[in-house]
């Protein structure tokens, strides 16, 4: 990495010296940026190569997720992932991926960075695509034969996509 930084500095040092006010910080190697660039926005620009199917996801879910989230994603003991559509305006709203989350890209992003709880960041991209496909299917959002990849995932429209409003506060008279 030190060698990469040195080369990058040689390449861009002249313009940096002119424009950067203090000359602090080092120019990161493109590969080092890419390794950290894991946050996925709704456009999906940062989604990695790979693909996964609903069926593959079902198998991974059973082995890596069901112990905490239940056999079908709604039994717990931890966060409910499945169900709840139509409950948000009721006295007992159930907030799940299917009922609440506005973007499918968030699912890939969060599973990859933070799950499974006991081994965060341990799943390969193919596994994360598969789990995402499985959980979207379990919520009735994609068909059983769906295969997700970087092109397909950002096109999935979530049921509660238009369910969020800007903060109107102060709102209490």
């Amino acid at each position: 990495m030190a060698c990469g930084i040195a080369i990058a500095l040689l390449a861009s040092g002249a313009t940096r010296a002119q424009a950067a006010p203090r000359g602090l910080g080092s120019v990161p190697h493109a590969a080092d940026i890419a390794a950290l660039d894991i946050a996925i926005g709704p456009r999906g620009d940062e989604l990695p190569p790979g693909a996964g199917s609903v069926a593959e996801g079902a198998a991974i879910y059973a082995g890596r997720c069901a112990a905490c989230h239940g056999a079908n994603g709604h039994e717990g003991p931890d966060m409910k992932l499945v169900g709840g559509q139509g409950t948000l305006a009721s006295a007992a709203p159930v907030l799940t991926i299917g009922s609440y989350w506005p973007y499918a890209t968030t699912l890939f992003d969060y599973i990859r960075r933070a799950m499974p709880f006991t081994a965060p960041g341990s799943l390969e991209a193919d596994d994360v695509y598969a789990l995402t496909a499985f959980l979207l299917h379990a919520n009735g959002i994609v068909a059983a034969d769906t295969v997700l990849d970087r092109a397909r995932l950002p096109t999935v429209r979530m049921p509660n996509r238009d369910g969020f409003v800007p903060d109107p506060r102060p709102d209490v008279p």
Partner: protein
Amino acid sequence: MRASRRDFFGRVSGWLGAVALGGVGAHAAADTTKMQGAPVRAYGVRAAYEKAARWLVPSRYPTSTASFTPLAALHGTVTPSALHFERHHAGVPDIDPVAHRLLVHGLVDRPLAFTVEELGRFPVTQRQYFIECSGNTNTEWAGPRGADVQQTHGLMSCSEWCGVRLAEVLAECGVQPAAAWIVFEGADGAAMTRSLPLAKCLDDVLLAYAQNGEALRPEQGYPLRLIVPGWEGSTHVKWLRRAKVTAEPYYTREETAKYTDLMPDGRARSFSFVMEAKSVITTPSPGSTLVRGEHEIRGLAWSGRGRITRVEVSADGGASWQTAQLHGPVMPLCHTRFTLPWRWDGGPAVLASRATDETGYVQPTREALTAVRGVRSFYHYNAIQQWRVTASGTLENV
């Protein structure tokens, strides 16, 4: 090996033959003028008699839970670093500060990686700011629930933070015209991620490396965290490793599935950042027992929109109010301590406080708050808190 207070004093008097001077029972005082005290030491600890501690909310996952500041045991406006509330999503990482980097990239002219040492060479900014979890006081939406002020309001603390203004660091990188948001990411096991509007980032956001005069505590983000003055605690990303400048927010899990406010009509508010004006009486509060006679009501007030300008106190459940004294300096986006002398005659009393900030915003009642938002929004509860004094002098949440 834990000794009770009685054991400790018993042993002291036995070993040294000290004479109790006016002591009573277990609290007989040793004569400390007839012996050498403890030697100097490299890093101090509090007195052995002081037991104030964070309350750990019961959880099956001790790394993904919260601890609450013991507000009733504290004085002034600064929270001791060791008692600052915690909310972690995947525990406290152990980070070597020499190896740590903050990467700034995305819509910038010059992506740069900064060491903590380099960030320390930028001009320092030091300010006292509160941090309040947006889930603070969430037990009270459905009515009085929390046992005491630590449980109801303890996800809130205040420190002096030192660091570099994020704007200074962004200037080093050259923010491009298309930039409108920044996605911040921590180096914890959840890689905690939040999107913040660029305007706030250029205004008063700090990259903090110090708290109350020393390096950040590990549980407060060592070696580097974000301070987002006046905004909900989860935006103050700890163990900060990355800032990606973007055109749009990224709708991360922590700004969609969580930290959004569900309204009665089934819609939810997102990016509801500011913590509105709030106050609470910390003394007396549940856990203490009043005797008849003179007391001083003490509490804390704060607002994410600026300075506290007024705190009123009621002893009759809000039927009448008296203006409390504010103890300066009153700083914006910071705890403000208020006090009011009060005499308890043994009769019925319901103590409450109500804060007003410099925008003219007045802290609402629970009834007014829930009339607008219902009881399912979980976050951003800031209604007036009431403590009822019972005939025996104890206090309870009502």
